[in-house]
């Protein structure tokens, strides 16, 4: 009985692993096809789709836009999310639960709705589809993830440390700068990183708020895919996957994967 269960558990886990890993593998393999068609398995070997992915103008512009938007959005979200997490974790006040619920709400509001809302807002305020609009939209989307990361890090700071610092003459500001901030740093870095990855990959809401000039890489990819069916898309995806893996491996050494993906469960 127990033996049977053990085997079943292994089978389910193996299947799950396959299905989770398969799509990425398929995309990577497909990218090396020599024919101008998205097909698996490939019929020949070629690197030309990689060349096209790297040299295609819209992708280059999308990548640059993505970096700009991601950098701003993650950094702003980090500031707002840290403040929110500190206020919610450290102070007890009426409406604390409401504040928390509102800050976390982008987790459950469809990105779709957010995109449309931003579009309506922009037109109401006669704002162009500028970078700020996209950045604002992304800040809202990644805020909950940053908050979670900071929140977990905050929970792991012994409240007695703040009291110790105060008894030694540190004002609340000195205490925050010299005690809390250095101890939060890994959590902040992890939160920023995760937010950056999410922001860089965001498509749904971005589709509504970007124009030709401000479009990010995923939007450029979507536009491309509607015109061409060649493996350039796959090649670009493979490059992105490789970059993400390298990036995370590097970050993992400094921060730990669990911290980046905010899955650590307290102390």
């Amino acid at each position: 009985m127990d033996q049977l269960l053990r085997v079943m558990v292994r089978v389910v886990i193996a299947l799950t692993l396959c299905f989770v890993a398969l799509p990425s593998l398929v995309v990577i393999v497909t990218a090396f096809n020599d024919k101008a068609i998205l097909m698996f398995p490939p019929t020949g070997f070629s690197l030309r789709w990689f060349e096209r992915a790297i040299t295609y103008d819209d992708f280059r512009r999308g990548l640059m836009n993505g970096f700009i938007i991601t950098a701003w959005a993650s950094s702003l979200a980090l500031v707002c999310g840290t403040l929110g997490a500190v206020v919610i974790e450290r102070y007890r006040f009426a409406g604390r639960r409401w504040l928390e619920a509102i800050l976390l709400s982008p987790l459950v509001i469809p990105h779709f709705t957010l995109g449309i809302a931003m579009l309506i807002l922009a037109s109401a305020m006669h704002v162009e589809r500028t970078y700020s609009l996209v950045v604002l939209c992304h800040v809202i989307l990644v805020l909950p993830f940053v908050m979670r990361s900071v929140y977990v890090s905050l929970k792991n700071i012994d409240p007695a440390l703040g009291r110790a610092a105060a008894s030694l003459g540190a004002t609340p500001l000195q205490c925050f700068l010299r005690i809390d901030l250095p101890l939060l740093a890994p959590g902040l870095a992890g939160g920023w990183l995760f937010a950056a990855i999410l922001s860089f990959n965001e498509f749904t809401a971005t589709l509504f708020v970007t124009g030709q000039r401000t479009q990010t890489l995923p939007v450029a990819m979507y536009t491309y895919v509607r015109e061409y069916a060649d493996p350039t898309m796959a090649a670009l995806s493979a490059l992105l996957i490789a970059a993400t893996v390298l990036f995370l491996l590097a970050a993992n050494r400094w921060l730990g994967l669990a911290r980046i993906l905010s899955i650590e469960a307290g102390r």
Partner: protein
Amino acid sequence: MTQTTESFSVSVANVRKAYGTTTALDDVSLTVQAGEFLTLLGPSGCGKTTLLNLIAGFVQPDQGSICIDGESVNELPPYRRSIGMVFQHYALFPHMSVADNVGFGLKMHQVPKSEIAVRVKAALEMVRLGQLGERRPRELSGGQQQRIALARALVINPKVVLLDEPFSAIDKNLRAEMQVELKQIQQRLGITTIFVTHDQSEALSLSDRIAVMSNGQIEQLSAPADLYRHPASSFVASFIGDINRFPCVIKARTETTCTVAMADTLLTLPITHPALSIGAAALLFIRPEELTLVPSHSDAANLGTGQVDTHVYQGTHVDVYVRFADARVLRVRHPGWQATSLFALGQAVGVQANLQQAFIFPAR
């Protein structure tokens, strides 16, 4: 008012504090003399930590005033109160070296760098850890960490040092050593100290005076030997030291003595509480070391005769538990180790009490 408070290092007057509907402190007043080692002792939830946090400034009183060195500190935040504080779990800053931890308070007080180095070195040598300045706190043992925390609290020359159960997380075998060290440092520096603990033996061994607290009030504030030898209430008698407790009834009383009936025995003993009237129910307390085992039915057996129920060996002595016919169990302390063989399990023995050292309080 100022006149009376000026002579004290810390004075707490009529302080109340409630959390929601729970009263944490109920009209507590207390004065601590300069250089005194005062302990707040009580079970968890008695209000001792709240009182400490009020003095430190981490908690605001609902009512009442707190003075340090004769000045009211009610309006001062913790970082202006000139206190040193030591916490249960050390609360060392994990991202700083030991030396930076100890120097943190001096830095906050804008002491020049060169002076900081000198004073940190002296403080570390005071706690006999002069060579550990470059280490990180997490590389040290619990006892070492707490000594660093003590050095950090004392190096800023605070007006009063507050210790919140500083030894409760430390290995029991190291605790006695740490206690002696703390007491010697405190005596050498002559610094006013307020110490919170729930461990009565720790309180007895360290303090000049002990405030025994219960339900947000101070039950008794006395020197350790007074507390042990003249408890003011049944709570204090139960909480301090090992003790036997029996219900009894007052049968007769004079100015200084009273006669009580306990089961079928009549005992005459000194009065230890004013509110004892004839016919009232009372509680009789007597310590195990004031009891002696005698042959059964001996005339000396003034508490009666029972059967040996259990031996509890403790190295320096054996506690013999004697069970009476009415299911009362008495704990009798017998020095040395021979009691286990002298008084076998099940054997009938008489119990003799030194009634001059018994306490009697009204049953609440």
